[in-house]
């Protein structure tokens, strides 16, 4: 068992466990903290797969900014909203959801286990090879080259998206 395989299994179990924690904790704060933990484990996955930049960005943005925002709101609403199971009006939902979830996971796993092979023809070749670029120029350069050469338009559109989101938040945030 190589190091990578070992780390993979550890990380896999850990991330699944913390994900379960997200949905199982009664307290919203605990759920948020679980999610942060899951995000960190996922960042470690990215590291293992060689996407350094993405891993750091994940921690910085997702865990660092988005989850902080989440925690703000959770603690703001925590005093009023207790996720106590006062009265679940559709108790059958959770069982069906659980069953369906198991079915989904099983089917997907089966499909992925038997079906996914890398088609060598789809691999990037020559100058496009990520590993080439990474080895020659470094990780961030590789990411930047790909982003601004191939994905410049989506990049600009996302900036537009962010502006819209800010405006939306401002509008929604005003007291009526």
């Amino acid at each position, binding site marked *: 068992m190589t190091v990578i395989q070992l780390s993979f299994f550890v990380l896999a179990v850990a991330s699944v466990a913390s994900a379960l924690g997200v949905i199982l904790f009664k307290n919203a704060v605990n759920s948020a903290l679980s999610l942060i933990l899951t995000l960190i484990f996922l960042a470690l996955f990215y590291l293992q797969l060689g996407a350094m930049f993405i891993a750091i960005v994940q921690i910085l943005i997702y865990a660092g900014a988005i989850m902080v925002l989440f925690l703000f709101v959770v603690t703001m609403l925590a005093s009023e909203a207790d996720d106590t199971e006062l009265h679940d*009006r*559709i108790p059958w*939902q959770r069982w*069906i*959801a659980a069953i*369906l979830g198991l*079915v*989904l996971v099983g*089917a*997907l796993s*089966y*499909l992925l286990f038997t079906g996914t092979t890398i088609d060598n023809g789809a691999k990037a070749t020559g100058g496009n090879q990520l590993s080439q670029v990474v080895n020659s120029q470094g990780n961030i350069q590789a990411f930047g080259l790909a982003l601004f050469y191939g994905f410049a338009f989506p990049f600009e559109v996302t900036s537009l998206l962010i502006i819209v989101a800010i405006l939306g938040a401002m509008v929604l945030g005003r007291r009526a």
Partner: protein
Amino acid sequence: MINLSPLVLLMPLLGFIILGLVGRALPRPLILAVAWGGCGLAFLFATISFFSMLGTPVANRTSDLVLYTWVSSNDPQAPLLISFGQFLDPLSATMLMVVTGVGFLIHIYSAGYMEGDPGFWRFFSFMNLFIFAMVLLVSADNFLFLLVGWALVGLASFLLIGFWYTRRSAVAAAQKALVVNVIGDFGLMIAIFLLFKQFSVLNYFPNGSSGSGVFTAITSSMKGQPILTAIALCLFLACTAKSAQLPLYMWLPDAMEGPTPVSALIHAATMVTAGVYLVARAYPLFELAPTALLIVAVIGSVTALFAATIALCQLDIKRVLAYSTISQLGYMFMAEGAHNYSAGIFHLTTHAYFKALLFLGAGAVIHALDGEQDMRKMGGLSQRLRITYFTFLIATLAISGIPPFAGFWSKDEILSSLLTQATNGGGSIFYLLWIMGLLTAGLTAFYMFRLFFGIFNGDYRGNTSTSRTHEELLDEEEPSHSTGNHHTIHEAPPVMTVPLIILAVLSVIGGFVGSYGLFGLPNVHPFTSFLDPVFSTVHISEGSLGVQWLSTGVSILVALLGIFVAWRMYGRGFAYKENSNPIYQLVLHKYYVDEILNAIIVQPILWLGRAATRFLEGDTLDKGSQGVALALRGTSAGLRRLQTGYMRNYALAILVGVVLIIVYYAVRG
């Protein structure tokens, strides 16, 4: 020969269209101008054609103008050629003169009679429609357009009978007329189908568009064949409906609900004679179907006698005249049944004169009495309505068959030909028919003079005050239409009396074109000679002088007897006593025919309709549409439960779909 029949057809059509579209807005003089123009110009053109015909040699007196080819199919499997054309020969020329001439006089009369009626313009537009339809009927050169004209006169009759459509009795009478007429139309249609199947053409004679005609395709070798008898009987069924013979006569007495000029024109002088015309026109068919012709004669005489008996007891003056019309039409069919078609047509023309006169005179009486039609409430009018009195007398004498008035000549010809047929080997049944004809003549004289004395003799038995309340007027048989003062009984205005006088003159001299064989001039018979070329294949043996004198003498005697009895009973006025004699009641109630038909036919059909409504419609409504609605409602109620409002349920639904897709792929492998 100048054939102006297209113009004769066009004038009343234009009148109808103009009055129908804009008549409501026109002033009264203009309406009259259009209406009188429509009928009068038709009469003018008919007269021109008639006189030009008199000026052409006998052999050239037919003209077949094909105006329009409607359907032309040369497919050898289904050859079909239908064209519209107008046929002018002595028969149709005579009919045109009668229709447009008497029609024109009645148009003039109606101007006075219908004065003040809010539907003035509508009346004249319908009258012009009728003239158009009747002209179409008699001048068509093929059976199909005969049928068109036939149906259109039925329509015009319906519209005019129900002219005062706010009165329920008038509407019911119009419906009855239409229903009975349609039964006849059915017969005519079947006859046309059979004719077409047999001969592949529908026009009477070969003309510009078709090489053969029905009457040239019938050969004497086909005599007695069942197909011909069937066609003839179907045609005759149509005649019984249109000319009010047994068994389809019952609409005519009810048709008296219409205004009196309508009764005069349509139900006396012209429309009801369409049946007589049809038998005359289709005489080659009837000649080769002797059974059918015999049936025509028998039904004619039975109807004549039957209607005469009913007329004996009637109290409404228009009803008496209606039954007398049915009776006289029976005479015409009797003549045609005895192979003497021109005698039937001759009686048609004289009957048009005196019957129209009788109806118009009755109308003058009704007009003078503010709508009264019951004989019991009349009397003593001889001094106050002089012109009506004298013209009515002339007409009554004419219809009773008293020489030298018109009715004598024509009725005598008919009776003579019946006796001639009997003695010359036509069959002993003609003796019976002759006797029935004589009986009818006697009864006719009796009840007509009963009517005459009832209206004019004795003292006035009506309401002394002729001003009625509005409710009483509504209960009247006809709404009041006198615009003058209500308290005096006065003669009608000249616009009404002048046609009376003209018709009276015609009733006097109209018979002089008859047969003079009686007086030792066997070759002098202007009317018959005029129509001879039409009925060229029929050879009527002129009876011996003795037979003719016998028939004539007996008929005059019988008529005088009838008048005498009537004078004895009613000469001093009509004193009505309720008579509970059961036979009297039976006849008074017209042998209860209407009541029997109502019970046998009308009520079951109504019951069937109600049952169908209840079961078919009710069940269809209940189960069908409500069922559909219930099903939909149930489905939507069930589906509505999916809309729980909980977002989580909707998400679950999405997940279910996703899982299904993925499982599908997993299973498929």
